[in-house]
Structures are given as structure tokens and as C-alpha cells.
């Protein structure tokens, strides 16, 4: 049986304070994260192991590109005289996740997950955690309600991400990874897109468009190490958070943040199966003529034909591209386990519904659900999509679809209805558990339980290491090997058996993964 691949989601949330027009989003985001730290363990994040300039193609760039707008913002940030540590307010939570202020957005990075059920529960727990912070911050401010949005745009050209991470063998040449994934990633938005009213960046384009995806306007190149400007379809940042000789971390930045659990599970589940095709050398042979153009044209195609040109000048459709990947994935993996069969069946159901009757995906696919809600509202209110003023109101509804407060957010209200059309993969018990419990059988379980058991001795952490301070002596546990089920089981068993942190370090020293710093 093929071992499940470790994966995780990073979600940057948008932040707004009702009634405050001159909001300082940097400070507000920092203060919001600090609202969590008052009741939880606070450990210092170790930035020493991060290098966002390292490129998987085998080089390191001198600097990352930033647009003029962002450069001016950073100059303002330097005048704040707030130490970086405080500005980031970086927290590791007992559930193994990371919560921090990333580029002015509160970000929740899920723990490493093996199952889609765990991933969905962790993602939903992230919504609850940032909502809890927003409510506390609202009380603390005394003026204005803090609202958080799990979306990817401010409709004015500023985008922020929901990134997916997957462990991948280093042995696969990165050029093969790019060519194998491009047709899949460019077309995945037909079921994974979150939907958007209007077009950004391209100001000459007709604004009377409901797009499939929030992010598609923002991609300019096929591959690069940058993530904030000249965004690439495939990010080449080389930070494996695992043994670099054996693994890459595939960092997918093209996806939207999904409200629908079904969409979260399917977008990740389908990509995991495609990565298996890649490892087996079984990816359907196809090359898009213009991947960057296609990601936009598919998203903006109001006729939903989704035609694209291949490199040999023949034409195909996004549906056919996805069907080609699905066919090979089914042939390779069908019957392996329940989760795999769920992904294969739902992937097929999605493509059939999109071809025959997209409304079958209300409550599953975000763009379909959002469009259905907005059309219902436009009909009820007599709004005209062609009128800019009416469209502005619809754009506001689009934003509120992503509000994470279940008393205000349109998606969450739909989900909470008794006769709801929303497909759930989690339940309240699973989400509540994921607030404090890491996914079982993972490195995250070790990280979270080390904090619970020996938090007083933890000096700093990163995804792949934990630094202990034992009476002034610094001992570092290297977790880079702890990414497969068998190794994680060894780590977690030894943690369970350890009565003291000294016991734990002694048990791990025999594995040659503990380093002592004088």
C-alpha cells in the first residue's frame, strides 16, 4: 500500500475593523495574534532555518521581488520601532499548527496531516481560532468590530494566499514536476475556485465577469521563487522542512482559500493523486501553449466552455484535461483505501456536474455556491450585474461569503441551516478536537505533545526542530527525518514513555538526532 503523503495548508486571512477607515492592518494583525497568546503556550519561532530565497532549481536569489507599493509599506514598517519578534507574534499551538502575523495578514498554518479528514478539521479549527482572536480583539479595542475574511483579494489588486504543501522525493527533477503539474494546476480551478465578482490587475478587461477563482488574475510567470509579485504558477522556494537530500516541499500557491470542506478536500486529494502519477511516471502527456494566459482565460470565461490551446496547437478544454488526469489516477489507485476512492468518486462527480449541471455542486464547490447565492440575491433585489453600483453591492456579498463569523458569514450561515445543501466532511466533535489535538501519527503530534508535556523547557521551535533549554544547556532535536509514519511512530512512542525531558532526550540521542550546543 502506498503511504499517505504529508500535506498541510497555510491560510492568510483578510482583516477589517468595522467603522475604522484608517486601519493600520500591520498593528491590527499583530494585536489580533497576541489575543491568542494570552491563554496559550508561547514559544519563540526559530527563523534560523528559513531561507525563502533558496530556489529548487539549484540557486539562491539575491533578493525577492516586491512591488513599489509593498516597498513603501515596508519603509513605514521600519518606522514603527516594533521588534520583528513582536511584529510576527509567532506562535506554535498545542494542535501542532503555527499562528502568526505574515505580511500584515493573520496566518494559520495547519499541522502536518496524513488524512484529508484531519486536514479539513485542522483548517476549520484555524477558522475558529482566528475568530476567537477577533472577538477578543473587538472587546479589547472598544471601538469597531474586527472582521476576518478567509478569501484571497481586496478586489483592488492586493492578493494574499492559501498555500498547499506536499512532501515530494528530491529524486524527481524539478523540471519534471513543473511540466507534470502545470496542466492540472491551471485547470483545477473549475472545481476548486472560490469565485470572484470582477477582474483585477487587468483594468481594461470588462468588469461584468464572475470569475471561477480569486487568485487567477495574479499570476504572471510559470515558475519562480517569488510569492508576492510576479507570482508564479509553480513556486520554486526550496525549504523542504525535511531531509533536503531526500525531499522537496512542493509549495503550491495558485489555489484559493475554500469555505466548502468538500472543495478543500478535493483540491488537495486530487493533487495528491496527481503527485503519485508523477512519481510513477504516469502523468498524461500534454503541454499547454500558454499556461499563464490559460489560468486567466479559464477563470474569466463566462460561457464556461474553458477551451485552451495545447503546445501542438490543438485545442482541448479544462474538463478534458482534468478527465485525463482522473482516468490515470483511477487506473493507478482505485480500491486502495476509502479516502482514495472518495477522492476519485467526487472528482468524477465534479467533472460530470460541471459538464451537465453545475448546480449539483451547490454546497460543495465555492464558485458555484457563491454564484447561486448572488444570483438569488440579484433576482430578489432586482439588481443588474451590468451596472457598476449594483455590482459593487454584489462584490460586498462576495466578500461577506468569506466572513468567518457564523453569525455574519454567508457561507457559514448556509452551512448552519437545518435544511442545508452543504456537504460536510467534518463535524463539531472533530473540529473541537482539532483546536487542541495534533493529527495522529505525524511529526505534529510529537511537536504538540512536547509543548503539552515539556513546554517549560522548550526554547524555540521550527517545523523540523525543537530546541530545549535544560538548565542553561541547549539541546536541539532534529525532526527532519520524522516525516514518514514509521519514524513518527518511533518519536511519538518515545515521547509517550518519557517521564522527563531528560528521559526524552536520552531516548532520542540513540537515534543520533539530538545536538548539543555549548
Amino acid at each position, binding site marked *: 500500500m502506498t503511504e499517505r503523503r504529508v500535506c498541510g495548508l497555510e491560510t492568510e486571512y483578510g*482583516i477589517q475593523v468595522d467603522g475604522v*477607515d484608517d486601519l493600520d492592518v500591520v498593528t491590527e494583525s499583530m494585536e489580533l495574534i497576541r489575543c491568542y497568546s494570552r491563554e496559550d503556550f508561547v514559544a519563540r519561532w526559530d527563523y534560523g532555518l528559513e531561507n525563502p530565497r533558496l530556489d529548487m532549481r539549484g540557486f539562491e536569489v539575491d533578493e525577492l521581488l516586491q*512591488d513599489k*507599493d509593498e516597498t513603501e*509599506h515596508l519603509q513605514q514598517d521600519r518606522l514603527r520601532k516594533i521588534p520583528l519578534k513582536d511584529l510576527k507574534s509567532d506562535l506554535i499551538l498545542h494542535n501542532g499548527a503555527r499562528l502568526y502575523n505574515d*505580511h*500584515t*495578514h493573520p496566518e494559520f498554518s495547519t499541522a502536518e496531516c496524513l488524512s484529508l479528514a484531519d486536514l479539513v478539521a485542522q483548517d476549520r479549527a484555524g477558522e475558529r481560532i482566528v475568530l476567537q482572536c477577533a472577538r477578543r480583539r473587538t472587546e479589547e479595542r472598544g471601538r469597531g468590530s474586527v472582521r476576518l475574511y478567509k478569501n484571497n*483579494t*481586496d*478586489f*483592488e489588486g*492586493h492578493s*494574499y*494566499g492559501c498555500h498547499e504543501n506536499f512532501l515530494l522525493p528530491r529524486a524527481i527533477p524539478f523540471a519534471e514536476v513543473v511540466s507534470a503539474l502545470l496542466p492540472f494546476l491551471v485547470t483545477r480551478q473549475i472545481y476548486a475556485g472560490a469565485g470572484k465578482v470582477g477582474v483585477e490587475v487587468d483594468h481594461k478587461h470588462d468588469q*461584468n465577469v464572475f470569475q471561477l477563482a480569486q487568485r487567477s488574475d495574479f499570476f504572471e510567470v510559470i515558475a519562480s521563487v517569488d*510569492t*508576492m*509579485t510576479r507570482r508564479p504558477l509553480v513556486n520554486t522556494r526550496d525549504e523542504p522542512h525535511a531531509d533536503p537530500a531526500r525531499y522537496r516541499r512542493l509549495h503550491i*500557491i495558485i489555489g484559493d482559500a475554500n469555505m466548502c470542506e468538500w472543495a478543500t478536500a478535493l483540491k488537495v486529494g486530487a493533487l495528491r493523486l496527481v503527485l503519485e502519477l508523477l512519481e510513477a511516471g504516469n502523468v498524461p502527456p500534454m503541454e499547454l501553449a500558454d499556461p499563464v494566459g490559460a489560468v486567466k482565460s479559464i477563470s474569466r470565461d*463566462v460561457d*464556461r466552455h474553458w477551451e485552451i490551446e495545447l503546445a501542438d496547437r490543438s485545442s482541448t478544454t479544462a474538463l478534458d484535461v482534468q478527465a485525463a488526469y482522473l482516468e490515470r489516477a483511477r487506473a493507478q489507485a482505485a480500491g486502495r*483505501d*476509502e479516502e482514495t476512492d*472518495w477522492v476519485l468518486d*467526487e472528482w468524477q*462527480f465534479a467533472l460530470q456536474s460541471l459538464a451537465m*449541471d453545475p*448546480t*449539483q*455542486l*451547490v*454546497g460543495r464547490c465555492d464558485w458555484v455556491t457563491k*454564484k*447561486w*447565492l448572488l*444570483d*438569488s*440575491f*440579484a*433576482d*430578489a433585489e*432586482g*439588481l*443588474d*450585474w*451590468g451596472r457598476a453600483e449594483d455590482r*459593487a*453591492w454584489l*462584490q*460586498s*456579498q462576495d*466578500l461577506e461569503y468569506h466572513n468567518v463569523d457564523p453569525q455574519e458569514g*454567508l457561507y457559514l*450561515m*448556509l452551512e448552519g*441551516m437545518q*435544511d442545508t*445543501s452543504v*456537504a460536510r466532511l467534518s463535524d463539531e466533535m472533530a473540529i473541537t478536537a482539532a483546536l487542541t489535538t495534533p493529527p495522529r501519527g505525524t511529526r505534529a503530534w510529537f511537536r504538540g505533545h512536547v509543548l503539552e508535556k515539556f513546554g517549560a523547557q522548550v526554547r524555540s521551535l521550527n517545523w523540523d526542530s525543537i530546541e530545549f533549554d535544560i538548565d542553561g544547556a541547549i539541546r536541539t532535536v532534529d525532526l527532519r527525518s520524522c516525516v514518514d509514519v514509521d519514524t513518527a511512530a518511533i518519536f511519538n512512542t518515545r515521547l509517550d514513555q518519557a517521564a522527563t525531558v531528560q528521559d526524552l532526550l536520552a531516548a532520542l540521542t540513540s537515534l543520533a538526532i539530538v545536538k548539543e550546543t555549548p
Partner: protein
Amino acid sequence: MNPEMRDRAPRPKGPIDTGGDGNEESGPRRPKVERPNTDDLMRRMRKVDPNQARRYRQRTGQ
């Protein structure tokens, strides 16, 4: 209403039986879903400030 947008609008046509093809014996089930009563939702949507999105300004993230 822009007629093109109306024609392209996906909308539920009635209760959707997605209980599968009868062959699903294991794995996460595809839940049965029905068209919801959206009256409460429409009331909430009417309360949304028409300028909410115009005032929503963020900085570029990743």
C-alpha cells in the same frame, strides 16, 4: 439584470439526490443535500453594506 449573466447563472433545480450510485460501501459518504430555504440568508444579504468591498483594503500578501 444582464441577460447573459442570468442565462449562465447556475442555480439549484430542486432537491439533489447525490447519495451515490449505490456502489459506495465504504469511505466518506457523499451527503444527501436538498435546496435550502434561503429566506434568512436573503435577510442577512440585504443588511450587507453596499460599500463593504470598496472599504475593504488590504496589503499584498503571499
